[in-house]
């Protein structure tokens, strides 16, 4: 979290809306542990990361949608035979993210 504070502070000063994504659970091999975080502002600019670059693009889309709707939700990315997950982790693990507006 610490590494994204500087960007968040700057965006807050500019009155940008911000969404925060946090890794809350990892199953199998995942590159980042629970607590890894990434912030996305309304312009789609990012700070931090939640994987090794595998899912960050999809997180931006989710975050921008959340900034529109104000919804808070758990989003899961990982490998699956039924192709339920459009975006996967190449390392074969599953990560669960909690994404919400930074309105607290």
């Amino acid at each position, binding site marked *: 979290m*610490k590494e994204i504070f500087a960007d968040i502070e700057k965006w807050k000063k500019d009155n940008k809306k911000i969404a925060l994504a946090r890794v809350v659970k990892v199953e*199998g091999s995942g590159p980042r542990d*629970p607590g890894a975080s990434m912030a996305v502002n309304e312009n789609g600019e990012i700070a931090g990361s939640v994987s090794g670059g595998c899912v960050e693009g999809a997180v931006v889309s989710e975050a921008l949608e959340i900034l529109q709707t104000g919804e808070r939700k*758990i989003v899961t990315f990982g490998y699956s035979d039924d192709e339920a997950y459009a975006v996967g982790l190449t390392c074969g693990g599953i990560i669960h993210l*909690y994404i919400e507006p930074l309105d607290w």
Partner: protein
Amino acid sequence: MMKDSIFETLREAIHQGDPIALATVIDGEGRGSKLLLHSDGSKSGTLGNDALDRVVTRDMSGELAAGQSGIRHYGVNGEAREESVSIFIESFAPPPQMLIFGAVDFTAALVRVAKVLGYHVTVCDARAVFATAERFPQADVVEAMWPDKLLETVGASLGVRDVVCVLTHDNKFDVPAITSALKTEVGYIGVMGSRKTHENRTLRLREAGVTEDEFQRIMSPIGLDLGARTPEETAISICAEIIALRTGRNAPNLKEADGPIHGPSSKSI
């Protein structure tokens, strides 16, 4: 005066290096509600009701002490064995400490690598002419004092995430540094020196009353067998050993090993 938001309070505590835990309802009633627990036991925010706050506070306290983060499930009033509310508890522990005894050439390189890894680094040498902030600009603290004196002051604050590296290779300084470090809960004690220095030092440590169990804690000669030559390469070999000791791995090549690359670590840093 407006009370700081949960986020600002969290940011300030992390900035100050104060341990703090954040609980967030991520699924179930009151999704998005938050509770902060400070190291002095004070709280900010609420997860919805006092009963739930009380139960979760207990778990937050445990997670914070272990430096761990994860999801736990409760009933809406904190009932155990119910799963209607999912709460993500996140620990923000201050950075681990590295104490380096001996302000030698290898020290500057080790300070740089340790800073990359996020350590709070203290360099200590009894010889005031070597222990200067100018020689170690990246160190957080530089102390010109005897190692046992420094450990008398900070020893009680050392835990399993913290490390002590003794680089002086002079028994006069090494022996008090090692015997004092052994009295702490520090997770790693590494000591530099050639095989010959190591053997001679081992004799001196035995004379000083170091037991066989205590010798198991001392990584000497310090570092992994990488064939490191320069101070920078040696610093990498030391830090690699610290990581491998924490995770309980043998540090072979990944190419030669099986199993997941990102396995659970035995101790959270």
